[in-house]
């Protein structure tokens, strides 16, 4: 198992820490805004905590997806990827895994801190830690798909985010419901179903979109 593309993307992320640290800092700072804006009553914070954390997780994923293919298009490595004999779906999947490792995983590490800020009790923190990997993985797959579809529109920033946003909504609904609700099993399973659907359909669609975009770049 060499996974050259994954290693390359992670290396690029390590060399340019701003690209994933800034969304992470944005995530943390935005969560801190809510107690300041809404007030520090623990009951209020506890009620809105699942929704706030999930909304902000979505925003930070959208914020970090912009560079997924942009640099690869500019320096020509995307064309090399398309020419390579290995299946493009695997390359797309590697992109999604790299995006998740750089943007999803740090959120999970930070989650206990944010839960403490938002007065989230321990059992709900546990649910948050279970839902975060599933939901952020859906976000990463959708991010790769949306950026692949928008790859031909190199001059419109945030177009990919605009495309991904409505498609992310089911994951947000199920994840927030699992953390907030009294019966977390059903939304949790549905969130897992979203991930299985996403991982089945989206790499295929993203690979098709990349091939189509390559004609116009």
């Amino acid at each position, binding site marked *: 198992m060499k996974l050259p593309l994954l290693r390359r993307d992670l290396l690029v992320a390590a060399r340019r820490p701003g690209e994933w640290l800034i969304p992470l800092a944005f995530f943390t700072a935005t969560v801190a805004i809510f107690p300041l804006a809404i007030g520090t009553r623990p009951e209020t914070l506890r009620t809105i905590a699942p929704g706030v954390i999930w909304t902000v997780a979505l925003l930070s994923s959208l914020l970090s997806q912009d560079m997924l293919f942009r640099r690869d298009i500019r320096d020509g490595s995307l064309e090399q990827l398309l020419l390579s004999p290995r299946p493009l779906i695997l390359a797309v999947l590697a992109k999604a895994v790299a995006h998740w490792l750089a943007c999803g995983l740090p959120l999970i590490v930070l989650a206990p801190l944010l839960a403490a800020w938002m007065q989230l009790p321990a059992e709900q923190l546990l649910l948050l830690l279970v839902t975060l990997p599933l939901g952020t993985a859906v976000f990463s797959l959708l991010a790769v*798909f949306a950026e692949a*579809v*928008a*790859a*031909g*529109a190199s*001059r*419109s920033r945030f*177009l990919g985010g*605009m*495309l991904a*946003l*409505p*498609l992310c*909504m*089911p994951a947000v*609904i*199920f994840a927030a*419901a699992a953390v907030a609700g009294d019966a977390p099993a059903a*939304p949790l399973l*549905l969130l897992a179903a*979203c991930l299985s*659907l996403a991982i089945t*359909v*989206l790499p295929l*669609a993203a690979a*098709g*979109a990349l091939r*189509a*975009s390559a*004609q*116009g*770049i």
Partner: protein
Amino acid sequence: MGTSVYATLGRLASPPVFYRIAEASRIWLIGLFLLLFIPGIYGALIGAPPDYQQGEGYRIIFVHVPAAWMSLFIYVNMAGMAAVSLIWRGKTAAICARASAPAGAAFTALTLATGSIWGKPMWGTWWVWDARLTSELILLFIYLGYMALVASIPDRRTAAAAGAILLLVGLINIPVIHFSVDWWNTLHQPATIAKFGAPSIDKAMLMPLLLMAGSFMVFYLAVMATMAQALLLEQEASSQWAKQAAS
């Protein structure tokens, strides 16, 4: 048999033939629209009896319900044409999908606006986060995202292919969105037309509703064909037939 059907469809899909058919059928489509719309709107506003519970205020459903049907129908139709354009590389199918988007977005916006106007007296508020309202709002975002995408990719073929893939993924996602949004307890009244057996709506109300739905459908076809003609001319500007058609 099979080949001849495909051959006919293939000829129909060639840009100059499509252009000529669209040109010739526009006046008929507009006439048919008026033929359905005028009795429909008369029946809706004057002919149909007032509802025993909602009084005159219910009459907005004669616009709201057909618009909601169209908002979904156009999306599914666009996705179908997107599939055709991807599988058979049809230029015309891709253009028809693109030309449908403004009408679809407009019907979706009309559904939201009329629903909101109806909701004010009936529910006492302009907006509720009801399941169907919310799915319709997300559908509007998907339409706008599609339009933004095809508008911002300069290369026509890339725009068509990327847009088609987005439409198909959106098609898979729409039931998921609808189901996830259904999670909340819904305030919306349950469907009254699409029940098995006799629909629970009076004939005097059903007729204008169906006429309005028919007229909206014809209106969509007319708008889509006209917009597709403009897009075709723009895309094929260098070809002989387009020069002749435009002169």
